[in-house]
């Protein structure tokens, strides 16, 4: 698609007329892009460099560009460190990320569909109730939510980590907007075939919306994996720490082992980098769709 638009642009602009200025201009473009790219990738370089160094390399008087003697043993040392249960934190993050994503998709998509497509006289009131939560970001009400969740005895528990975050007014709103634009004909065909709303939803609407679901899923998972404030508040017990809380604990810990801290950072972002590279198409699509509509 983008290739087509380029061809038309080139045709419209007149290829010959641009000539030398165009080449110079695009050299400048690429130079600017390269500088920006280097700046954007420097933090990744630092993570890799420090994760594979010894502390002496990192803190030395002169800058070591990359350790010649790669310290892969840092990985083992990190997981063997008894002070921070890092493997457990990775596992927690994975479980929380998956449950968070699955729960959010299920609850918010059905709610969004109900709001968009089921004619019901109180639907508008319910919609206002959802919209009301959009005005106050969930993070702002973490004190009240903590009060409630701690009274339920859910502190340091998986349900405390996951359940309060499932009811995202924003995601429900996105689904509603999406379903408003879903072709009515498909649904009506299903209704003619004798399916009720529920059946039509699962047999026709969802299978035809997998791209949108995938996009929201990737974004929700990343959000869940990277969330910090709520896991920090609720993860009082080390056993319930997520990766982000574990990482943060290194910043306030008694002793600072730079190489371990950076190895931990590297391992914490690696899964998401992979998700990014593999699922980039959906992700870009998802960002474009959800962002604009939000």
């Amino acid at each position, binding site marked *: 698609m983008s290739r087509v638009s380029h061809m038309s642009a080139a045709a419209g602009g007149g290829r010959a007329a641009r000539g030398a200025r165009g080449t110079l201009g695009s050299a400048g473009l690429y130079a600017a892009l390269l500088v920006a790219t280097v700046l954007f990738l420097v933090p990744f370089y630092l993570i890799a460099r420090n994760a594979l160094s010894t502390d002496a390399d990192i*803190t030395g008087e002169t800058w070591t560009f990359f350790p010649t003697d790669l310290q892969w043993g840092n990985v083992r040392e990190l997981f063997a460190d*008894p*002070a*921070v249960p890092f493997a457990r934190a990775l596992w927690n993050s994975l479980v929380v990320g998956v449950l968070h994503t699955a729960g959010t998709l299920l609850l918010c998509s059905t709610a969004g569909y109900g709001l968009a497509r089921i004619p019901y006289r109180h639907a508008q009131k319910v919609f206002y109730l959802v919209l009301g939560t959009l005005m106050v970001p969930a993070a702002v009400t973490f004190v009240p939510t903590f009060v409630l969740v701690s*009274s339920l005895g859910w502190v340091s528990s998986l349900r405390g980590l996951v359940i309060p975050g499932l009811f995202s007014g924003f995601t429900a709103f996105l689904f509603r907007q999406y379903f408003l634009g879903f072709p009515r004909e498909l649904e009506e065909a299903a209704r003619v075939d004798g399916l009720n709303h529920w059946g039509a939803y699962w047999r026709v609407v969802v299978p035809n919306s997998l791209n949108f679901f995938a996009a929201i899923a990737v974004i929700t998972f990343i959000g869940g994996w990277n969330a910090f404030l709520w896991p920090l508040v609720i993860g009082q017990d080390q056993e319930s720490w997520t990766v982000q809380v574990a990482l943060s*604990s290194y910043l306030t810990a*008694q002793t600072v082992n730079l190489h371990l801290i950076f190895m931990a950072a590297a391992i914490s972002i690696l899964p998401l980098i992979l998700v990014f590279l593999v699922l980039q198409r959906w992700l870009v699509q998802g960002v474009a769709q959800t962002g604009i509509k939000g």
Partner: protein
Amino acid sequence: MPAISSREWDRRDLLRAAGGIAALGALSACGSNTGRGGGGSGRSLKQMYHAYGEPGTQQAAQKFAKAYRDADVSVQWIPGEYEKKLFTALLSSDGPDVFEFHPQIHMAHERQIVPLDDILEDAKDDFNEADITSHTIDGKVYGVRMIDDPQFLYYRKSLLDKAGIEPPDTLDALIEAAEKLTTDKVKGLYLGQTLQPIQSPLIWSTGAELLTPDNEIAYHTDEVAEALRKLRRLYAGKALLKGAPTEHWDPASFNQGLCAMQWCGMWAMPQILEAHGDDVGIIPWPSSGGPQGRPAVYNGGWSAFVSAKAKDVDAAKAFVKWLWIDQKEFQREWCLDYGFHIPPRKSVAAGAEELKSGLAAEGVELFNSAGIFDNPSWTQSMITTLTDVMANAVRDDADPEAELDKADRKIRRELDKIFG
């Protein structure tokens, strides 16, 4: 007065509703607990430590817990933000039964901790007197001291010699020394990122106290304000190490040669000796502020407490008695085998050969001659309030007098809440 009684009535209704929700919470909390613990003896205890920096400590804590026969003790090891984690945990229904902390009066008043006189009994006389008095609140002893940790200034002898200076004995001399010791690679002095560890020593060194014996504000004097001004000049200059990746409690900055002097604790002495050999000396925080000034060493440390919310308070007490009163060999190991800490038990200290010579002996000497212990009336929120003074008046450029006035208001409110 019908208006009042109806308001009372509303409130009671609300309370009942809240109680109902809380009960619901308790119910589901029971549900969530079934997966935990459940060992042979049937009793289980949760013990909470802050994360010690010295290698081997966590394993030792677990070893002690495992050696206890009368209950299954699980050790929680908290790196970073220990106070916050502890206070939140104590509030929850699933908090620690036994934990380490510093003596603070509000915890006793709010019934978060229980008196331990009955387990101390005979052993009381074997403790350093100050370790008993600093844990006595309204006539009862609330904590069992585990370790005494004096904090002082470490300095590199060779660097001072090279600069041609003597170990400083006044605040002015300290600032001057820091400036002279500063080169393009090495800073003169490191006091931690937040300056929190030196806030009390600074006040003491002017001759002032934190609170009077009747628990009135005593830190707000002209000398303290003046000392803050001097510290601000030091902070604004180039002689102080700022932005180091590690806090004052970690000797890394000193050991990596980032600074020539550092405020740190007795605990780090083995690591420091390993890094610099006998090229190290220690001094107290020097006297600041005229004739009534005095050198000050902060006698910090950690003590064991029993949570009033413990599921079985007696079992928790029995464990504290076993570990921190009966097991002298474990106490010796905890104090001497990882970092250096002064054993609070006279009988244990008597056998501590490691502390009887060299720099360690000098540390013990400073602990005894210039050391000042925690005042249980000085609570965590007062500590934080003073840290804010350090932040605003020293790290930022605010007027110390105005900042102390602001702190007075907060601390007075706190004192009113505690003492009425």
